[in-house]
């Protein structure tokens, strides 16, 4: 598969898996199948999970987007939806669930708390699940309405339709580093800085 350097012309970088008619058609087919049969692994911890349940129920009906089946086993899931705030006590749990999910896999961070810690800038709360696992789509809101989550899912479908099976970087496992962290320590400290109203919370005893 793929063109040789000579055929592509000088100055064009070509790999053996460069996009051509066959790979792009194959991409189209796999992405069509993947994006329309996402099996969500619901990780509901708080009020966002109630909105998530509403999204899955008859009025909003997630199954219209091929998400008929909630996969309560991470080993049969495609997309992890973290609906609600994540306390530090659950950090090893969501990390283990993420590690158990087979590739290809995506993650949606639903709501303000999952995305940034939200109002819980305290000793118990992970300041955004992106310090634990890689996140594809952030859905804002407190909690987001079902329409918001469905829009987030459609954004994810759009992202999946733009992926290519030739891109090996997409399917890389992001394991914890030798320091036991997913992101560098400095980055975690930086994105966990207080912001908005929570800068006023530092009140000494």
């Amino acid at each position: 598969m793929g063109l040789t350097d000579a055929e592509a012309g000088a100055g064009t970088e070509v790999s053996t898996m460069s996009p051509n008619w066959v790979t792009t058609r194959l991409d189209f087919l796999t992405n069509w199948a993947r994006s329309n049969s996402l099996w969500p692994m619901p990780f509901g911890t708080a009020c966002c999970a109630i909105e998530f349940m509403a999204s899955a129920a008859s009025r909003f009906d997630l199954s219209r987007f091929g998400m008929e089946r909630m996969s309560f086993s991470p080993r049969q899931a495609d997309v992890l939806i973290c609906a609600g705030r994540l306390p530090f006590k659950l950090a090893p749990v969501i990390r283990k669930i993420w590690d158990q999910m087979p590739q290809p896999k995506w993650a949606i961070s639903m709501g303000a708390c999952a995305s940034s810690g939200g109002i819980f800038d305290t000793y118990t709360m992970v300041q955004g699940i992106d310090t634990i696992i890689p996140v594809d789509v952030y859905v804002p809101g407190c909690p987001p309405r079902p329409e918001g989550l469905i829009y987030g899912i459609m954004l994810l479908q759009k992202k999946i339709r733009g992926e290519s099976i030739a891109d090996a970087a997409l399917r890389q496992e992001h394991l914890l580093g030798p320091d036991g962290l997913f992101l560098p320590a400095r980055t975690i400290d930086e994105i966990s800085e207080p912001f908005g109203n929570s800068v006023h919370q530092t009140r000494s005893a």
Partner: protein
Amino acid sequence: MTAGPADLVSPAVAGLRARFGTAIIRHQVSCGDTIVYVTRDRAHEILAWLRDDAGQRFDYLTDITAVEYRDSERPLEVVWQLWSLDRKAALRLKVELDKRETLEVDSVFDLWKGADWLEREVYDMFGVTFRGHPDLRRILMWETYAEGYPLRKDFPLRGHFSRAEQTRQALAANPEAHYSLEELSIAAAYDELPADLKTRLAHGERGKVE
């Protein structure tokens, strides 16, 4: 209601004073609730009497908690909230603990089995040790939590460690390594079970055990 403040005092106070004398330090009425301050060393004895005495029968332990005040001179208080199911009466008992000394009181697990998790929570959040508790471990925070006791006033809202360090410790916590003593003892007791029960357990049978 035209009852004066004196009428609102729970009749249990008079009984307590008659029975325990100087062990009852003082009492006060707040929002209609009677609060009795007792000495630490006799708190367990007093609670047992309140539960068992025919005139008191405070048989239901509503809650155990603790209070620390912003004034660092004030002692930390351990609170027992009691309720009498028969008489529909409430009573609050408090013990003051000097923060410069070891925070320690007697466990009431032998009086109320429900005290188990309540005392674990007070231990987890305030660092108060309950003497005689069968399984005094953290209950809300994970077992390897190393930052201290979160509801103490000297505990900063965001914790002592940096966010990166908190994340690292949380990810390394390995919750499966910390099963409770009961869970471990069930597994350990397998060898002592009767042979037929072992056979049935091995087949995953969930039938009635004679």
